[in-house]
């Protein structure tokens, strides 16, 4: 049972070990969606939402796997259950809250097989978090992901208007910006100790 405090977990996931900028998880949507500020914020919201769902699923599955002593089923059960639960939640959302569904839109299916979600489930299990710790971790990870996306989008929108050499435009420029952002986030190390 992990003894880490809630605030420490949240800061760790959001800033110190930001999922995108420190662990390289969720890079595909990060580069794909971060061109516009509006899509970035919606993606961040959708990701946080899916992370919460995935975190709960992972916790429950892990309890079951430990009970039946089948650790080798971890990968396959995590990915299948998370993918189908998000699908289910998407259907429920469509029925119960069409407004939220339209706001999150296409991003829900895009995120489901994303490394960030699966990585969250794996890390949370490896760290041995309890349920409330896991939820805090998911919230922190989602917040960090959203923050990185928004920062990236802001910079990229400005970059679009600047005079960037043809060769560097697009992914290469985004990678360099990401590298600088990552360096910036390194300054958060040691926070919350």
């Amino acid at each position, binding site marked *: 049972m992990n003894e880490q405090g809630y605030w420490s977990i949240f800061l760790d996931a959001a800033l110190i070990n930001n999922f995108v900028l420190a662990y*390289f998880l969720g890079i*595909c949507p990060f*580069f794909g969606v971060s061109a516009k500020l509006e899509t970035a914020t919606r993606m961040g919201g959708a990701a946080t939402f899916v992370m919460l769902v995935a975190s709960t699923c992972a916790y429950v599955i892990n309890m079951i796997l430990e009970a039946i002593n089948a650790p*080798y089923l971890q990968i396959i059960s995590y990915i299948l259950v998370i*993918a189908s639960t998000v699908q289910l939640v998407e259907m429920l959302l469509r029925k119960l809250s069409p407004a939220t569904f339209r706001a999150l839109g296409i991003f829900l299916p895009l995120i489901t097989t994303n490394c960030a979600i699966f*990585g969250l489930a794996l890390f949370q299990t490896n760290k041995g978090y309890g349920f409330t710790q896991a939820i805090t971790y998911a919230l922190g990870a989602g917040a960090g992901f959203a923050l990185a996306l928004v920062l990236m989008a802001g910079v990229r929108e400005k970059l679009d208007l600047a005079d960037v050499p043809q060769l560097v435009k697009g992914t*290469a420029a985004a990678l360099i910006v990401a590298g600088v952002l990552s360096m910036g986030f390194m300054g958060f190390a040691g926070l919350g100790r």
Partner: protein
Amino acid sequence: MALKKTSPTDEFIKGLWRDNPVFIQVLGMCPALAVSNTAINALAMGAATTFVLVMAGLSVSLMRNFIPREARIVSYICIIATFVTCVDYAIMAISIELHRALGAFIALIVVNCLILGRSEAFASKNNPGRAILDGLGMGVGFTFALFFIGVVREILGSGTLFGVELFPEGFQTWTIFVLPSGGFFAMAGWLLVVNWIRQRQDDAAKQAEETAREAAS
């Protein structure tokens, strides 16, 4: 349906450069950046991914008439997850240190869009032989990309290659390169090189076309 003219060797070669997963298709970047801080890690990760690519491609191809259309993504995920689990245990059995170094990223191979993409786009529509070649080509191309990034990061960031010290005592390592930022920068660097080469190839092709047109007119 028109008969495909691509030769078997072409299936393999295309993954190395023309359709390179990391630099051209820009897929599977997460592990490319995360596990490439040393050359050995990059190679090990590349090898593991290639194994899953080939085995999953082979399985999907063998079962392609058996998997119903509606359930295909779920089936692919199931098959890929199985081989990833196998690779995970295999690496643990080979070396605990290597497993610790690669960490959770072995398990993360399962969400590598590259493998799902190849299963859907190629393996499900071709015979096992070609599927294996495609998987192998993509895997080797992926490994090359990871390896190049890894080499740069290790030499600049730790002053070693495969753990062997390259520089005399006084060399100040460029530590940023073994940190996450370095991953981004190294990849950006290689992407620029690749883009530049392709630019030149395109220009040369355009030149050749123009000269051909002038000669014809």
